[in-house]
C-alpha cells in the first residue's frame, strides 16, 4: 500500500478526479447554497435599480471560461429581465459576441420573448482595442459604436438615444475571464469616473487580484462558480418560480412536493457546485495521503 501510493501513477489521480466530477453531475447532486457578503452586495446593486434603468453588460469571456462564468452571465441576464431593466450588451473579447448571443438565446429569447430588441435590449457587439475601448466609451460611446452587432445604425435604435457614454448607465455588470476585463474596467472607468458603478463576476484565479478594489471601486464581486451559485440562489429566492418548466399544454410542471420545476439553465451554478465540493474533498484527501507518505518515508529514512 505504501509503495503503491509512494509511486502513484498520476493517471489514478486523474481517474479519481474524473469520478469526483462525473458522479455528482450524473446523480444531479445539489447542495444548499448560502450567499456571502460579496454576492449579496452584487445582488443588492442590481435589485435596487428601478424598472427601465439602463444597465451595461460587458461579457468579456470566451468558451474556455464558460464553465465558470456562463452560469453567472445567465443569472445576471435573468435578474435584469425580471427587473425590466434596459440591457446593453457589449464585449472586449473577439469571441465575446458568441457568449452574448448564447446568454440572450438562453434567457431573453426563451423566457422573455416580450422584450423587444432596440427597446428593451441591444447587442453592441465587439470592438478591438481592449482598454482603449473603455477609455473612449467612458466619455463618448457613439464615437466607437456607430452600429450595433448586426450593422444597424445606432441612430436607428430607440434605446440608444439617451446614451452618450458609459456614465449614462446606472450600473455596469462585467463578466470577465482575464485581460481585458474587470481590472481594466475599474482602472479606466470607475476610478477616473467615480459616478460609474461596476459590479463584476470573474474566474477564481482572478478574484484575489480584484479584492483590493472592494468596496470603493467595486461594490461587489462574484468569484468563480461559487459566486455564481450564490448569486443564482439569491435570484431564485426572489424570482424562482417565475419561469418554470412547462409541459406541452403550457402548464407548469410540478415536482413531488408540488413546487414548480425550475429550468436547469437557472440552476447551473448550483449544479456545478456539487462536483466542486466532491473534488475539493478529494484534493484534501490526496494532500493528506501525500503527507502521510512523506512522513512515513522520512521516518524510515531516519531509522
Amino acid at each position, binding site marked *: 500500500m505504501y509503495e503503491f501510493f509512494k509511486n502513484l501513477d*498520476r493517471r489514478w489521480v486523474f481517474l479519481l478526479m474524473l469520478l469526483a466530477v462525473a458522479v455528482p453531475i450524473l446523480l444531479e447532486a445539489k447542495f444548499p447554497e448560502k450567499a456571502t457578503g460579496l454576492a449579496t452586495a452584487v445582488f443588492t446593486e442590481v435589485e435596487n435599480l428601478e424598472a427601465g434603468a439602463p444597465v451595461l453588460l460587458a461579457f468579456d469571456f470566451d468558451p474556455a471560461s464558460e464553465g465558470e462564468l456562463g452560469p453567472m452571465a445567465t443569472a445576471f441576464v435573468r435578474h435584469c429581465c425580471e427587473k425590466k431593466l434596459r440591457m446593453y450588451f457589449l464585449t472586449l473579447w473577439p469571441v465575446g459576441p458568441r457568449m452574448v448571443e448564447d446568454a440572450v438565446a438562453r434567457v431573453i429569447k426563451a423566457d422573455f420573448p416580450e422584450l423587444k430588441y432596440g427597446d428593451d435590449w441591444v447587442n453592441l457587439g465587439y470592438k478591438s482595442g481592449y482598454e482603449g475601448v473603455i477609455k473612449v466609451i467612458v466619455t463618448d460611446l457613439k464615437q466607437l459604436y456607430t452600429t450595433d452587432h448586426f450593422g444597424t445604425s445606432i*441612430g436607428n435604435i430607440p434605446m440608444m438615444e439617451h446614451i452618450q457614454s458609459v*456614465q449614462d448607465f446606472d450600473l455596469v455588470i462585467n463578466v470577465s475571464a482575464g485581460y481585458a476585463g474587470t481590472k481594466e474596467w475599474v482602472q479606466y472607468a470607475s476610478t477616473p469616473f467615480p459616478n460609474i458603478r461596476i459590479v463584476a463576476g470573474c474566474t477564481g484565479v482572478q478574484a484575489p487580484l480584484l479584492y483590493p478594489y472592494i468596496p470603493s471601486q467595486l461594490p461587489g464581486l462574484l468569484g468563480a462558480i461559487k459566486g455564481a451559485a450564490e448569486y443564482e440562489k439569491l435570484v431564485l429566492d426572489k424570482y424562482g418560480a417565475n419561469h418554470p418548466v412547462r409541459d406541452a399544454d403550457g402548464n407548469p410542471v410540478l415536482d413531488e412536493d408540488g413546487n414548480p420545476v425550475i429550468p436547469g439553465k437557472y440552476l447551473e451554478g448550483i449544479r456545478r457546485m456539487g462536483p466542486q465540493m466532491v473534488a475539493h474533498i478529494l484534493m484534501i484527501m490526496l494532500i493528506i495521503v501525500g503527507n502521510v507518505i512523506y512522513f512515513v518515508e522520512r521516518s524510515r529514512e531516519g531509522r
Partner: protein
Amino acid sequence: MIRPPAARALSMVLGVLLAGPVGAAWAQEGEPAAANPPAAPPRIAAHDFLMDGGDQARIVWEQSPDDPANVSAYAIYRSRTDAEIQKKIKDDRAKFIAGRKTEATKAILGEDWKTMLDTLTPQQRIDIRAARAEAAKAAAAEFDAGAMNDPASEDNRFLLHGSTKSLELKYEVDKLDRANAYVFMVKAVGKDFSKSAGAVTDAPMSPTLEWFDGTPVQSGGRFWLVWIVLIFCGAVVFWIRHARRGKPIRVRKIAGLEAVDEAVGRATEMGRPCLFVPGIQDMNDIQTIAGITVLARVARTAAEYDAKVEVPTARSLVMTTCRETVQAAYLSAGRPDAYNQDLIYYVTDEQFGYVAYLSGMMVREKPAACFYMGTFYAESLILAETGNAIGAIQIAGTAMPAQLPFFVAACDYTLIGEEFFAASAYLSGSPEELGSLKGQDLGKVIVAVLMILGIGMMTLASMVGEQSGLGERLSAAVKFLKDVILT
C-alpha cells in the same frame, strides 16, 4: 408573397408615401408628447479646462427648480461648427433616404424579406432596384423641404455631448477645437424623458492650450506624479552612475537564476533539447521583453554547451525578436554556424491552441530543461505539470500574481514578480544593471515609509477621535496623501 411587377411598384410607392410621415417622425430626435417637462437650469457658465491641449471646457450650471423631483438627468450640448452642421444635414439626409429604401424593399417582399435575399430572380432584383431608386428620389425631395434641412434649427445647431445625473451640476466637454468658439446649452431631462427649454451660455468661448497641468497643486493633477517619477527615475540613474564608478553592489542570491546554467548543462548531458516559452503576450508587454532578455542568456549558454534551444512563440513579432536575440547570442558565443532559425517559430495566437501544441511537443520530444519566462494565464499549470510529467527541470518567471502559485507548486524554481525583472541584471552581472536594482529598492523604501506614515496617522486619528483638532488634521493629511499625492 410575390406580386406582379406593376402592382408591386405601385404598392411600394404608396407604402413609402404613407409610411413617410411616420418614418420621418421616428427618424428625428422625437419624444412622446411631453406631459410635464421640467424647468430649465437658471444659469450656465463655461470655463476653460486647466489640464488640456486646448480641447476641453468645463460647464457648470445651477440646479433646475424641479431637481430632483422631476429631473432624472441633465443633457449637455455644444454648438456645431458650420462644417459640422453641413455634415450632419448630409448624414441625416442619407439616413432618411436609406430608411425609405429599406421600407420599399419590405413593401415588395413582405416582412420576411430578409430570408428571401438569396432566392431572388434577376427580374426581382431589377424590380427592387427600381423601387428603391423611386423611394430614394421621393425621400430626398421630402427631406429637402423639411425642418431637418434647416441649419438654424436647434437640432442642427447643437450637438448632444453627454449627460449627467440629477444633482450633478458640472460636466467636462472634450474634443473641442481651440480655433473655434463654442456656445453650450444644458437642458433638464424629466423622468418621462421630456426635456426643458435650453439654458445657453451668454457668449461663445474658445478653449485655450496649457503646456502643463494648470490644476491647483492642492487639487491633484499631474504635478505630484511628475515628482514621484523624477524621484524614482533619479534614484535608478543615481545608482547606475554609482555602480559605474566601480563601487561594489551586493545583490542577494536568486536560486532560479543560479540554476539556469545547471539546467542547460543537464540538457546537454542528456542529449535533449531545451524549451523556452516567452509567454503568450506580444512585444508591447514588458514581461515579454524581460523574458527575451533571459532568452539571450539561455541561448548563449546553450551555444557554448552545444545544446539545442527550441522557442515556440504565440506572436509573430515575438518570433522575429527572439530570432534576432538568439542569433546574436550564438554569434557572441562564437557559434554562428550552430544557429538554426527554424527552432524559433510561430505556433498560434490562440491561448489554448498554443498550450495544446506545447504539451504535445513536450511529451513527444521530452526536453530536459523548460524555461517559462513571460506573461502566462490559465495555461501555466498545464505547461508546468506536463513538464513535470516528462521529468524536465523547470524554471519559471512571471509577473502575473494569479499564476505564481501554480508555478511555485509545479516548477523547480520560480522567479516571483520583480525577481523576474531583475533576471537580466543578475545574469549579466553588469554593475550598471545591478545599480538599477538598488534604485528600484529605494522605490520600495519610499512605499514602505508612506505606508507606515499613513497607517500611523490613521491609527492615531482614530485613537484621539476624528472630531478632535488633532484627529481632524491627521485625517485631512491622510486624505491629501491618498486623494491628491497618490492619485
